[in-house]
């Protein structure tokens, strides 16, 4: 018996780029993810490769993230960010000298220096190339997702816009990776019946759907979530396993909540005096996380224990063994009933590992090493599974998953929340109608008018990013999200009004192209539905 495991990591951040400011608070999201998740994950995979460990993972690198990772301005800012953190690390080693925090401060400084050197020397300041190398050596399958990570079920009324999100992403993927893309990460696992036609038309072979999408589907899934299904038009759908991912993901009792792991919130950026920390935070005196965290989760108390890295490391190993135990127990039961080897699809946000769950990368490394030693387990990718099942002539059930997402409630409630974000739909719909109208009325323009309309297309895609609705609902950086949404609508309205009076606002265009420079080869004609008619 063999348990096949598709481990999918979704790496995504919204497009946040403010070249007009030397330091910008929300740009730190990218830098934190780079330093705490993406670089540690790459270093971990590099180490596994060097140790001769066989592994297979799937990474979805979102188009917005890829654009930012390849951006010169953000690269320079990241280097500055790392230099500042290393400087703080040196200060921390001095400040904590002779205290029980000193060993941790020294460890943090070393990790920062190693990460920075890996970024500059091994990756040559471009981690995308490192992912590409691992992909070319067959360790990882790289896939894409919607251009700006839009929650696609909201836009079903406008299929040309859904297609624009998918096609733009695939064009970027082909440009960067010079190969065709087999898999597509549905943002927030958002699926609606009918979407498979647009995915399939764009050459996509497989996607992953939410855990409850098959059981609520138009047929009873005979093998439950232990096997992919195929939609009638031939798109493979791999259902996410809620029970196993919940062991890690659950906010109330997932592994990361264990008392010996590092506390995410206690950070010297908030705990130390303003005078000391001022050079490392944002103006005007806006405290931020610095990554220097000295306490463990401990429990529901303000009296936190000092974090012990060695104990936490040991716990990560125990948790990886526990995960495998649960997986094998479930696999055995499934195999007995289904009379076939189970396929597990486990998907997570990549930023969970290292950033939110500090020991997460270590847990993943133990997991991969243990799986490599175990004959009953095999890490695979969905593309491998398709090849394997096709070779075996395995009969795959044909059915349609139900409308679904992995958001709270399981459908669109998170992105259509009456109290916080549903009001946006009216504005976004109007913007989409205007963009579609522009693409039809002014098709195939050349020169500056083409640039003007292409920028309108970029603004429309950026406006659709599911992150803005998500942030507004979670009330985390609401003001920023609102400003971004309104900013993109204003920009689109400007193009619409100018074009309606047969003019081009060049002063706006030059600044907008410099600021929102995503998708340099975009063609606004993708918004013209007539271009798709037979």
């Amino acid at each position: 018996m063999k348990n096949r495991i598709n481990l999918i990591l979704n790496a995504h951040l919204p497009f946040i780029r403010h070249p007009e400011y030397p330091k910008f608070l929300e740009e730190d999201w990218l830098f934190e993810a780079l330093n705490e998740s993406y670089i540690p994950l790459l270093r971990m995979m590099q180490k596994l490769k060097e140790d001769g460990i066989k592994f297979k993972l799937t990474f979805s690198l979102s188009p917005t993230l890829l654009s930012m990772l390849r951006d010169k301005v953000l690269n320079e800012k990241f280097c500055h960010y790392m230099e500042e953190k290393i400087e703080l690390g040196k200060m921390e080693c001095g400040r904590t000298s002779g205290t029980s925090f000193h060993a941790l401060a020294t460890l943090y400084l070393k990790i920062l220096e190693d990460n920075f050197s890996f970024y500059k020397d091994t990756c040559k300041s471009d981690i995308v190339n490192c992912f590409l190398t691992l992909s070319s050596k067959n360790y990882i399958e790289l896939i894409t997702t919607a251009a700006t990570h839009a929650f696609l079920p909201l836009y079903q009324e406008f299929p040309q816009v859904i297609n624009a999100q998918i096609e733009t992403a695939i064009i970027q993927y082909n440009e960067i990776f010079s190969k065709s893309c087999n898999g597509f990460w549905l943002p927030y696992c958002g699926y609606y019946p009918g979407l498979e036609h647009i995915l399939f038309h764009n050459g996509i072979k497989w996607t992953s759907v939410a855990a409850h999408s098959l059981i609520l589907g138009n047929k009873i899934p005979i093998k439950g979530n232990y096997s992919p299904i195929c939609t009638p038009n031939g798109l493979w759908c791999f259902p996410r396993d809620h029970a196993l991912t919940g062991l890690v993901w659950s906010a109330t009792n997932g592994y990361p909540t264990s008392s010996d792991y590092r506390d995410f919130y206690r950070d010297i950026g908030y705990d130390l005096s303003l005078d000391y920390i001022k050079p490392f935070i944002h103006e005007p005196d806006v405290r931020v996380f610095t990554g220097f965290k000295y306490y463990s989760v401990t429990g529901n108390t303000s009296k936190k224990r000092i974090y012990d890295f060695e104990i936490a490391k040991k716990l990560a190993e125990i948790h990886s063994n526990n995960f495998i135990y649960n997986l094998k127990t479930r696999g055995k039961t499934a195999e007995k009933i289904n009379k076939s080897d189970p396929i597990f699809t486990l998907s997570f946000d990549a930023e969970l590992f290292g950033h939110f769950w500090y020991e997460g990368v270590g847990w993943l490394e133990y997991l991969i090493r243990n799986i490599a030693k175990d004959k009953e387990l095999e890490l695979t990718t969905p593309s491998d599974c398709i090849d394997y099942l096709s070779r075996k002539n395995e009969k795959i059930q044909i059915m349609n998953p139900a409308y679904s997402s992995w958001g709270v409630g399981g459908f669109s409630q998170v992105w259509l929340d009456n109290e916080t974000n549903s009001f946006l739909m009216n504005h976004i719909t109007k913007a989409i109608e205007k963009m579609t109208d522009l693409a039809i009325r002014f098709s195939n323009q050349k020169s500056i008018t083409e640039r003007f309309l292409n920028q309108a297309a970029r603004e429309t895609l950026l406006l659709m990013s599911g992150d803005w609705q998500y942030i507004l609902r979670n009330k985390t950086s609401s003001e920023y999200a609102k400003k971004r949404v309104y900013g993109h609508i204003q920009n689109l309205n400007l193009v619409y009004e100018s074009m309606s009076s047969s003019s081009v606002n060049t002063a706006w265009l030059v600044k907008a192209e410099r600021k929102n420079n995503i998708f340099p080869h975009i063609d606004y004609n993708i918004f013209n539905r007539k271009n798709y008619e037979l």
Partner: protein
Amino acid sequence: MIRINLENLSENEIRYLAQEELENVNSLSVNEIIDLLKEKNGQTEIYEFPGTSMHKYLNSLSSTVTRLEELPGVKPVPESYNKTSLHLVQRSLNWAYAYWNISDFVLNDLDGKTYSLFLKVSSYNPSEKRITNFNSFLDKSVPSPISESDKILDSYEIYIDVNDRNWNIQLPWADRRYEVSLELEINNQINTLCTSNVIESFNSEIKKNPEILNNPNTYTILINPLLSKTGNIIKNTHIMELLTPPEVKNEEQD
């Protein structure tokens, strides 16, 4: 002392802050936590936290974006749009969200008159599965439009105020197409102001045959992947409904 408006905080932030003030935070819902914190603080929305480490949450509350510059020539976003139109988007398997605009022309015309506005929710047969003559692959991804030959199978009305601009719409019948129209009743006449796009409710097989879960093997295969380690089922009303014994459902209805 840090003064924080509780309503502005995320669930994670509220839970974290409450750890210092309340016991057994994990067993409480967010609303219960807010109520208890308000109780401690004399029923005001603004809660005063004594701990200095609580500075962290000023981050999400301090507006660093006031300096976010607008590009030259842009105009403020209007609150509404001067064209009567109505849109429908699916919210879950049996709920949709309708949102609309009413033009100034219509609104001015209603001034001083006696009238009623209502949404008419109409359901039709599902999309014809045998259609093959699509104009493009895009047409396959949406429900087929309502044609003159389509008959309304069932419908219901929701009376609304002239200031309403959105409504959650129930889709009571599975496997049907739905269309919502904005109707104006004036001088004993009903005029359709606008009609929405079409959406289609889903035909979930297990909802028609929930007894299939009485088979222990089927139950194990279908339900186990949806359970947490503590035995809680995934938070989804349709799945939870499937697992609710009929007698409990009847009691709830009573």
